């Protein structure tokens, strides 16, 4: 049976390296902030809100690659970890109530 020490898990999470965004050129960064960023926060983005001169089609491809290889992959990993923890059976233990 899989057991997890919560203290150790918390310690591992706290000491893990913070996620840093990979380097992006100006156009990709524009799309990341003005498209992905807003959609991720639940906001609607209209074509009229975007400046078509601020990026080119290569930047769109870069963002797509970034999304697939980093964001989506991280999201899958996080979901997997969440599901594992959620389905673990609790261990009964006698503790002092006070």
């Amino acid at each position, binding site marked *: 049976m899989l057991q997890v020490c919560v203290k150790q898990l918390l310690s591992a999470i706290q000491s893990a390296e913070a*996620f840093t965004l990979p380097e992006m050129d100006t156009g990709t960064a524009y*799309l990341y902030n003005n*498209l*992905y*960023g807003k*959609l*991720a*926060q639940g906001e*609607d*983005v*209209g*074509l*009229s809100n*975007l400046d*078509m001169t601020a*990026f*080119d*089609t290569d930047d*769109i*491809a870069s*963002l*797509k690659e970034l*999304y*697939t290889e980093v*964001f*989506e992959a*991280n*999201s*899958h990993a996080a979901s997997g970890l969440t599901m594992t923890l959620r389905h673990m059976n609790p261990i009964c233990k006698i503790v002092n109530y006070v």
Partner: protein
Amino acid sequence: MMIDKLEGFEMILDTLTVAKELHDIDRYDIVQTQFFDTLCLDAFYENMLGVIASVFTGFHNDYEDDEEYEIMIFTDDVISKYYCLAWEYGWSHNVSHNENPYVIEAKREANRWLGYCFSIGYKLLGYTRTKKTAMQSKLVVYSAPCECCSFDSLAYSLLQLYQFFARKCEEHRERVTKVRDAALENPAITDAREGVMAA
């Protein structure tokens, strides 16, 4: 910033790619008239169908119920003018239709952009027998439902083909203008003419 999986994000990016292409070829009017402004998964197919129907001026489509495929016929000034150039070249250089470099290049471009999927068929009906027939040139595309061929791919391909024809017509127009301007500015031609007039 929360990093999360967004439903349909890749299709949103595909929509943006097509919109950007249209912007870059000065056809953003299609985005303004055919696209839903809000970028979302639900609007994807409508947006792409709008592009397919609008990129060339003339668009006619029909659906074959028995065979389950769609026929689309595209006509435009850029196609007609291109084949008029082809006719002119063939006539002035005494070159047959199949050996005409304009015809060969157009076939190559059509294959490049439309020959990517087994469920897309096409026929580039380019005529060079006379100038009148050249003006009736058109593009016919057949499309059967297929998971690997999406509407955005077809929309993008049609955009590229439109750009090809438009670019070639523009290049020819610039060449003709240059030659005419050079002829007008050439003093040798002017002196010769004056000499002829004086005699």
